[in-house]
């Protein structure tokens, strides 16, 4: 049986040229009317020849006419591009088929193609058509290429209505499609069905996709992912008949907010916070679009932005927050045919102040303990002058590391000449850093390097390694010798941005008499901030989890150096601290379908959290508890927007998460058949296109790519070629042979 109606044509107007099929007849008739006249002597022989050949000549003429007429008809049909609205294969009666429908679930499928339709609706309609055309006894499976892929109907179902119900309840697309994982899932689904349903003799896989380049082409020409993709294509083509339905729009134009982030390390109420928005235009013509930024629903910034095709446009603006706590931000570009990526959300926690713990390893008992006193002044130099201060330092002895109920109360911890680190201390410091805390370690005469290296350094358990370098022996110069000089390494590290081009700040002139040698392990991710001239690193840093660790090889007071007395000390300490605090905000920025995760220390066993989604739906989430920590994990982040998490009693704390779409899907360029075959899928696959009238866009009567490659057109063109050859052959034969 052939699943078919009459074929549709991509260019129906071309069919008018079928009238040209009458041209050979017309020429034939005209040629009978247009002739030369000639006197002729040998008439009797000519007449005899004509009489003998008359019948054959007539047959030859009709044959040539037929060939030429057919040639024109085939040519016109080929140019009109018949779209295969019928299946390109036949199904033997009685042969049961497992039909697997794989939908491209990337959010580019939401592209609107008209006032009412969009690519996703057409995808669903194509899937329905495939379902409705199945035979009784055929099995149906449905797989969504998502992140991760979802087998909506895994085992073959024979209930068409149930299948259609699943299809109709698929939500709007907001995520990316993981192609490799989806194909692996498809393959395993087929293999499983062959085991469980051996009565299904044949397998068809129908991919329905817009063939987005960003979806189908893995990064890098020779990436293992691409190789894997080709392997999967080969495996699938061995297991099943493959059909790829191209439902992509022909000339999509899209603009998007591809990035929205805070430029400053953290937002405070004391100074304006700077933000950066990046916009992209995926089209051909420049456009000017209005951009708005909203904070907690109120517009705080507006600008007309000129966009150039494929040139990222960056917009910066500053805002001074009046209130602390979490704020929901949204950058909003005028909506186009793909509205999803015209909004980008940001969750910002504005700190009223930053709590900094200064752990004094050698408290002096005096009011001014040099070990931490210089630091305290450096962190809050305007104490008693300004009404508010960003940093709130708190000096505590080293016992605080074990006694403090929750280190996460602090944003950063300074260890100042703390002699020994114990395993218990390491166990408390590690999660503090992992979850975004900043740890800054000043060494000193009391420091026993072995204990640091044992519990925090390279010798520690991999889970507790915090030190960016191995603390080596102490290196000193006597007071009679020339002190060590600091090498700022051409101010390459971002911490030193303030000092760059400003030699009078005196950073390079700071005398250092004693320091611990710091040995950075090979293949370490640690970076050097400052060196001792000709003698290796003095300050190094490393990111651990979401936090940062900074190790300073000398003291925080003047015993081993003159830094605290140098005017570069205050900016250096503040910049080191700002750097160490960078990052905690990132945990509140999530991509759709990725879980919201957060952990808090609580003594309550039945702590709950309520999540309010962008659709204003509230969901109570049970927390997972391990030890004194309660972990939130919320997976239903399908919609982009700001998600509010309200921690129940006894915390009663509110926080916001921003969930955004992956901007890679905003580039709607699609693959042509040639590109698909050459770069991705050399294995056998049939390409088909459906093009209802509603999807024809202005100025794109013929779409590039697949429509030209519909097998019917190719076959017809082969027919044209064959007829051309036949015409030439017949013409030659009739003219030269009797």
């Amino acid at each position, binding site marked *: 049986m052939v699943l078919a109606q009459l074929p549709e044509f991509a260019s129906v107007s071309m069919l008018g040229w079928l009238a040209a099929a009458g041209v050979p007849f017309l020429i034939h008739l005209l040629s009978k009317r247009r002739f*030369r*006249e*000639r006197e002729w002597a040998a008439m009797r022989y000519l*007449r005899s020849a004509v009489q003998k050949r008359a019948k054959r*000549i007539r047959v030859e003429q009709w044959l040539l006419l037929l060939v030429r007429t057919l040639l024109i008809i085939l040519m016109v049909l080929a140019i009109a591009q018949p779209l295969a609205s019928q299946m390109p294969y036949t199904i033997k009666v009685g042969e049961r088929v497992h039909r697997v429908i794989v939908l491209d679930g990337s959010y580019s499928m939401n592209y609107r193609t008209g006032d009412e339709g969009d690519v996703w609706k057409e995808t669903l309609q194509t899937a329905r058509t495939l379902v409705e055309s199945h035979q009784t006894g055929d099995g149906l499976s449905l797989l969504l290429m998502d992140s991760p892929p979802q087998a909506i109907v895994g085992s073959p179902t024979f209930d068409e209505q149930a299948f259609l119900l699943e299809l109709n309840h698929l939500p709007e697309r907001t995520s990316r499609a993981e192609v490799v994982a989806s194909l692996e899932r498809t393959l395993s689904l087929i293999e499983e069905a062959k085991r469980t349903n051996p009565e299904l003799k044949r397998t068809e896989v129908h991919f329905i996709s817009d063939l987005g380049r960003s979806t189908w082409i893995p990064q890098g020409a020779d990436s293992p992912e691409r190789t894997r993709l080709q392997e999967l294509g080969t495996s699938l083509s061995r297991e099943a008949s493959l059909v790829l339905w191209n439902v992509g729009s022909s000339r999509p134009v899209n603009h998007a907010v591809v990035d929205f982030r805070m430029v400053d390390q953290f937002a405070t109420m004391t100074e304006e916070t700077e933000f950066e928005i990046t916009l992209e235009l995926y089209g051909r013509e420049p456009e000017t679009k209005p951009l708005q930024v909203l904070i907690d629903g109120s517009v705080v910034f507006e600008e007309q932005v000129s966009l150039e095709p494929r040139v990222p446009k960056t917009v910066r603006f500053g805002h001074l927050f009046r209130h602390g706590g979490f704020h929901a931000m949204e950058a909003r570009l005028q909506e186009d045919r793909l509205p999803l990526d015209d909004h980008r959300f940001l969750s910002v926690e504005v700190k009223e102040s930053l709590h900094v713990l200064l752990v004094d390893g050698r408290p002096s008992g005096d009011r001014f303990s040099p070990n931490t006193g210089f630091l305290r002044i450096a962190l809050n130099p305007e104490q008693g002058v300004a009404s508010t201060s960003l940093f709130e330092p708190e000096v505590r002895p080293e016992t605080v590391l074990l006694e403090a109920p929750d280190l996460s109360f602090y944003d950063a911890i300074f260890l100042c000449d703390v002699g020994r680190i114990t395993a218990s201390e390491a166990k408390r410091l590690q999660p503090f850093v992992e979850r975004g805390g900043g740890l800054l370690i000043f060494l000193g005469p009391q420091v026993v390097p072995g204990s640091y290296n044992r519990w925090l350094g390279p010798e520690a358990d991999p889970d507790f390694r915090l030190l960016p370098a191995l603390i080596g022996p102490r290196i000193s110069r006597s007071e009679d010798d020339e002190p060590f000089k600091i090498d700022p390494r051409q101010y390459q590290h971002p911490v030193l941005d303030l000092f760059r081009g400003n030699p009078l700040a005196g950073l390079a002139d700071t005398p250092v008499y004693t320091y611990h040698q710091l040995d950075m392990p090979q293949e370490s991710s640690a970076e050097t901030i400052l060196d001792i001239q000709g003698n290796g690193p003095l300050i190094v840093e490393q990111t651990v989890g979401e936090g940062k660790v900074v190790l300073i090889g000398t003291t925080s007071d003047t015993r081993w150096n003159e830094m605290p007395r140098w005017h570069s000390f205050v900016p250096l300490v503040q910049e080191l601290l700002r750097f160490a605090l960078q990052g905690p905000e990132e945990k509140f920025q999530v991509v759709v379908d990725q879980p919201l995760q957060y952990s808090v220390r609580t003594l309550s066993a039945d702590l709950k959290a309520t999540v309010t989604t962008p659709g204003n739906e509230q969901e109570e989430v049970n927390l997972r508890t391990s030890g004194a920590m309660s972990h939130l994990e919320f997976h239903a982040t399908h919609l982009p927007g700001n998600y509010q998490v309200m921690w129940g009693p006894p915390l009663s704390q509110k926080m916001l998460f921003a969930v955004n779409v992956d901007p890679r899907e905003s580039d709607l360029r699609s693959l042509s058949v040639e590109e698909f075959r050459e770069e991705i899928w050399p294995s056998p696959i049939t390409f088909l296109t459906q093009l209802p009238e509603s999807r024809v866009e202005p100025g794109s009567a013929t779409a590039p790519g697949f429509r030209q490659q519909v097998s019917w057109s190719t076959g017809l063109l082969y027919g044209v070629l064959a007829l051309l050859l036949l015409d030439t052959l017949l013409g030659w034969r009739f003219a030269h042979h009797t």
Partner: protein
Amino acid sequence: MQPSQKYLDPQTLASLQGLELRAHRIVEGYVAGLHKSPFQGYSVEFAEHREYVPGDDLRYVDWKVYGRTDKIYLKRFEEETNLLVYLVLDISRSMHYQSDAASLSKLEYAKCICAALGRLVLMQQDSVGLATFDEALRQYLRPSGTAQHFKQMLHLLDQTEAIDKTNTGPIFHDLAERFTKRGLVVIVSDLFDDVEPMLAGLKHLRHRKHDVIVFHLFDPAEWEFPFRDATLFRGLEAEPELMADPRAVRQAYLKEIQAFQAEVQRGCRLHQVEYVRLQTDQSLGQSISRFLAARAKRVHV
């Protein structure tokens, strides 16, 4: 090509006005081109009288001699030593055909042949006669060896125009009856007629002990059929018009015309008639050579 021989070329002849001039040039050109005269060593027997014996034909009695000498002498021997050449020219309308590739029409070409052969014959003191025909015998000039006669013959050729269709069979029979004295009959025609009656006519001529040469004339287009466009062919001899695509029928036509020519040639061979196929774009040397060969044979019999 030697300067003297260029006059055998139809293109050159076409540029010459007047049949006499053309004949003169042809013969002069041919003779000059020969290394050795074909007439060398040839001696014509002088006329003599023979006494009458019972049974002789009284028409040949030389009455002048009888008047002077009272003896009956016959003039028979004088006549027998001369060669009689009968030029038989087809002037039917089909002979009027001339294609773009040919410099002369078939009739003009045939006239050149006749004029040239006539001049050759007269140069050798022989007699030449001329008969023209189409559907019927149109003109007949009895053989004679005088210069005046030759001029009369040229005048007749000049004045001759193609008139009607061919009817060779009856004509050849008629001529066989008219040419009472044995001679060399030279037929110049395209022979576009029924082959069988025509061959019967030739057979009749041979039966009368004539040597016969047939110069079978074709225009190059009749032999090549080089046309391409659809053409309405109008017959020269009042045949119905015929519409044809030349490319479609060319091969069949060539087959027909070649079969006709082969049949004529075969028939001539059968009746011991000298057959020469000529095309109007060919040199006339071939026609003269074949004629001389036949003449020599005839004289030495």
